[in-house]
């Protein structure tokens, strides 16, 4: 039963940190809460035996993407004082809308039967290991994998083009 209590603990940490992202006044705190969320999600991947995704989640999300966010926030010198605020009414309306979405989704999912959750006869617990996933990735999903590299090239060129300062008053 240790694993199920670990599930509840990690879920609690992830949801608490996700709320922190939304509620924190200081953008730097939001980023740090988001990193905490990503770490607890990596814990989820680990207890689901998806080691590859746990490692990639740490490296790509907590490592690369969040450093980029933190870098931009510090570069732009954003803090709690510069934080724009919505009127209270708009905030309450937005929170009610988000809560209603949660209610509707949960009500719709309550009657769902996901079916047989696992089939013990053909179950393979090694599915999330690097060797197994690499085999699938480089045979069945070879073309999407190569296309992802083209996407990265396009994103890199786009980011450099956007970041370049241009002559004139308006930098568009």
């Amino acid at each position, binding site marked *: 039963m240790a694993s*199920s209590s670990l599930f509840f603990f990690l879920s609690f940490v992830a949801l608490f940190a996700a709320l922190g992202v939304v509620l924190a006044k200081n953008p730097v705190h939001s980023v740090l809460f988001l990193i905490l969320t990503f770490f607890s999600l990596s814990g989820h991947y680990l207890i*689901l035996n998806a080691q590859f995704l746990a490692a990639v989640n740490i490296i790509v999300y907590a490592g*690369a993407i969040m450093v980029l966010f933190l870098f931009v926030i510090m570069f732009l010198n*954003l803090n709690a004082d510069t934080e724009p605020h919505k009127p209270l009414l708009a905030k309450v309306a*937005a929170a009610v809308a*988000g809560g209603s979405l949660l209610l509707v989704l949960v009500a719709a*999912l309550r009657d769902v039967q996901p079916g047989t959750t*696992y089939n013990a006869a053909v179950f393979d617990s090694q599915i*999330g290991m690097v060797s197994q996933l690499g085999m699938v990735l480089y045979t069945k999903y070879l073309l999407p994998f190569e296309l992802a590299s083209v996407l990265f090239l396009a994103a890199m060129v786009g980011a450099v083009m956007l970041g370049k300062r241009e002559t004139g008053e308006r930098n568009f």
Partner: protein
Amino acid sequence: MEQTIPEVIRTVPLEYYIYFATALFAIGVTGVLTRRNAIIIFMCVELMLNAVNVLLTAFSAYRSDPNGQIFVFFIMAVAAAEVSVGLGIIVMIYRNFQNTDVNLLNRLKW
């Protein structure tokens, strides 16, 4: 064979993962609606992407099917590309308006 099945798959029903991902997604939606700082809105979009990742991984692990985890890998790759371009756009907005308030961009409406 029973021994090789991870304990969490035997003890936690798949529904719990669905509810957890739903709650995470709803928090992300609420964040996009409540905040006005473009960077925070962007982070809340990442939160929603991760809710979907958790759901895909859970289904993939419970059904012992590697395709779902490959999809998560591709979602992460696309998210990384999206973040680099999106933050470039935010830096450019900041250079022009000295602010990252999304309401400054309402002229895009016309």
